[in-house]
């Protein structure tokens, strides 16, 4: 009747899946709690892989959901359902669910305040980390690469309603996502501003960014910023369908 985008059709996701299979995920090993008619109960199918309260699985391939901007989580659920992101398990889980219910699920995980683990110590070279830091905080004006922080917030904890934070994610996960954007495996709704940014960077630079980000500790206040500061003159303009009715003026 239907075919569905399969897990691992393209190199990046195949690699990702393979690693995920090796690292047996922490599923429902929590002690059995009695049944309760709650949204937490209704989303046990999510927390089986994404960890209790969506705090991420230890293997690093099932990212944290807790505390991310609801609009971002909602957009990702739609992206999986509509074929802009590819992971068979996710796709077939969200397939029979309505937009309203997906929004409720997104808002639920967004509302959870769960402490972050300490970042893994950086293993990359000092030069790579320096390059990563430079790109994240300053960008590269000569190639019209905006600084990551100009859209994702100065504190890198994301911006409401739909821009995700960049901290608290393992390097392998960040690399897999940036790589997937580079190959077109991961997309957002068009116009896809993240695609435009990733296209301007090579794989080494993406790795530098991922390496530096993964080594940063979260600030005391982990909440996404309420808004972005006004753009400076000469900012790089990016249009993002995933951030409705907003034109991000990214400073170079």
């Amino acid at each position, binding site marked *: 009747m239907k075919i569905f985008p399969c897990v691992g059709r393209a190199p990046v996701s195949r690699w990702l899946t393979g690693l*995920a299979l090796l690292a047996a995920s922490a599923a429902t090993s929590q002690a059995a709690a009695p049944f309760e008619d709650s949204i937490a109960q209704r989303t046990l199918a999510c927390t*089986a892989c994404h960890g209790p309260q969506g705090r991420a699985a230890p293997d690093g391939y099932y990212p944290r959901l807790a505390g991310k901007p609801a609009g971002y989580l909602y957009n990702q659920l739609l992206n999986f359902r*509509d074929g802009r992101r590819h992971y*068979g398990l996710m796709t077939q*889980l969200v397939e*029979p669910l309505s937009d309203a219910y997906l929004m409720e699920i997104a808002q639920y995980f967004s509302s959870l305040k769960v402490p972050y683990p300490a970042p893994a110590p950086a293993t990359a070279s000092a030069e790579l980390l320096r390059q990563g830091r430079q790109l994240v905080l300053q960008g590269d004006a000569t190639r019209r690469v905006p600084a990551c922080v100009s859209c994702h917030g100065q504190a890198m904890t994301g911006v409401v309603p739909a821009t995700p934070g960049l901290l608290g994610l393992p390097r392998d996960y960040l690399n897999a996502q940036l790589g997937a954007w580079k190959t077109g495996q991961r997309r957002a709704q068009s116009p896809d501003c993240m695609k435009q940014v990733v296209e301007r960077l090579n794989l080494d630079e993406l790795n530098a960014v991922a390496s530096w980000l993964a080594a940063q500790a979260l600030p005391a206040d982990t909440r996404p910023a309420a808004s972005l500061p006004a753009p400076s003159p000469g900012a790089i303009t990016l249009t993002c369908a995933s951030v409705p009715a907003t034109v991000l003026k990214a400073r170079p």
Partner: protein
Amino acid sequence: MKKLLIWLITAGLLIAAVAVAVVWLNLRDEVDVRVPVATITPSDTRLARGAYLARAGNCMGCHTARGGPTYAGGRGIATPFGTVFSSNLTPDEKTGIGSWSPAHFWRAMHNGRSKDGRLLYPAFPYPNYTQVTREDSDALLAYLHSLPAVEQARPPHALRFPYDSQAALAVWRALYFKPGVYEADTQRSAEWNRGAYLVRGLGHCAACHTARNALGASSGALDLAGGLIPMQNWYAPSLSSPHEAGVGDWDRQHIVDLLKTGVSPRASATGPMADVVLRSTQYLSDADLGAVAQFLKELAPPATLAPQAAPAAPASVLARGTKLYEQHCTQCHGEQGRGVPQAYPALAGNRAVTMPQTANLVQIILNGGYAPATAGNPRPFGMPPFVLVLSDSEVAAVLTYIRQSWGNRAGVVTPLEVNRMRRNGGR
């Protein structure tokens, strides 16, 4: 030399005779599209009727690509013979059906032939749609013509030889397809007949719930006796057998609930059926669902005997299954496999658990899944995937335990069965 010539001529004549027969069989009850037909007046009632019928047939389900514009086609339908891509049903003149007359559309529904005369692949379920009335066909076209036009050409089918040839398709049709209209059974109630028309026609329930032969044809009787859905590896259970999904002894209302909301006191919809409830049956009127329920209730049960109680699995397998069940399943399905009404299905005495075909059980444990989010059950509960957590032998052990506990007496599930499903990837 002369003998050879005679032999050759005879063979040639035979081949010609078969070809004539195939062509003739393909032209049975053919609609003459040259006859000018007054265009259909797209009245509000007719459009509403067409929209409703499109839901009943779940046209959108196949004729919309994932994330693509609705009804613009391009979705790949995997079959054992290759991939067939659905066509664009929007009224675009060039790539859609904007230039189709009601007769063209009727010929596609009734005879399985496209506007240009090409034979259509039966992934488009015209062996079922041939039962649809002309009036309903016209209403459907009026509705489709009212949609926004989308220019999107259908990707070419990716079928293997010889399935990619029109000649092979003509032979298939000569063997397995006969156009027909729904003929009312005057011995039965009007309600039963309405149900039969919906189930056999637009509902195309037999497309999944009837077994297919090696050439992909449903058995002639369209008996709804259950079948493995090709490529998807889900088993569409028998709708007539009391040991599978037969509803002879169900409350009518419970059947209606299942089709309307996706859940009911006696079963819930998952996998491909969740999709059917989501996109199709939840939109049907209570009267039509009641008619479908009545028809299904009156399906004659097959003459087969009840499955015998299977021999008990080895104690070591059951012990392993018990431990896994306590660790992973008790929280929702309960120590006694009773589940939670409207949330988690009972496993004790559940036919979906005990029926001989285990494909669905393995699918659900490996990949998890939600019941459909319908107007009647907008916030369904879900089953987590265990594909990354449990090994093949663990899935087999826990399923064997479930199939042999709390009064269930079904056969063991082997690690090989699980492995086959895991490699196929399921949905």
